[in-house]
């Protein structure tokens, strides 16, 4: 599990890489929150294009970030989840708290060049 963070004006993009489970979620959470608390973004983009596995720990991760950015009226966008990750998201009703996008964000930083790591 690893992570790349980009900021552009009031937008933070987190490119998540690898497998998201309980073991890795703690580190991800800390790294994302550190940045998000500093920038107070209008939009937090969580890009799942390089996430190869995710269980409900990933739902906890999204919900926790949603609660955080909502403090200042920000929103969360979920980008490029794979079919099986979308399945977990749908089950959890993630579409009710975050918009789910399947193409690179218009304008914002993109995770396209992120290389998948185990």
């Amino acid at each position, binding site marked *: 599990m690893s992570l790349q963070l980009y900021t552009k004006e009031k937008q933070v993009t987190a490119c998540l890489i690898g497998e998201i489970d309980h*073991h890795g979620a703690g580190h991800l959470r800390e790294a994302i929150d550190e940045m998000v608390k500093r920038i107070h973004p209008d939009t937090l983009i969580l890009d799942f294009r390089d996430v190869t596995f995710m269980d409900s720990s990933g739902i906890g991760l999204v919900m926790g970030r949603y609660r955080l950015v909502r403090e200042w009226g920000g929103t969360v966008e979920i980008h490029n989840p794979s079919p099986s990750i979308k399945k977990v998201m749908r089950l959890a009703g993630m579409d009710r708290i975050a918009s789910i996008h399947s193409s690179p964000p218009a304008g914002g930083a993109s995770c396209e060049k992120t290389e998948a790591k185990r």
Partner: protein
Amino acid sequence: MKVLNEMKLSFPSRSANEAFARTSLAAFAAALDPTIEELADIKTAVSEAVTNAIVHGYRQQIGTVYIHAKILEKNRIVIRIRDTGCGMEDIKQAMEPMYTTCTTGERSGLGFAVMEAFMDKVKVRSKLGRGTSVTLEKTILSKGAE
């Protein structure tokens, strides 16, 4: 019900073993020639049950997580994940979607909901102070495997 293949696996309840456990089960299930989606379902459900044993069953301590998986006739896989940790008082309540005893806000209470959605059958047995066992069952439909 004839057992065509089986495996037993045990390891200490360290969170680093969550990935190892689901990968190992996926390798075992590969004999059924599952689709990518079916394999992801199994990995996800196993990950939930193993994480629960580690996070809830043993909490701060290190105990042993036991897995017993079987491949039965008609492309059925049965996976039992067992801990000898704290156990639960009310299984029905624990299995309700969004119910969690975790107070940090970082667990969604959806572990059992995921297991039920991704597997055909989920059976939970638990005894307070004695431990918990979760049995997951799934028939691999996709391809006409052995």
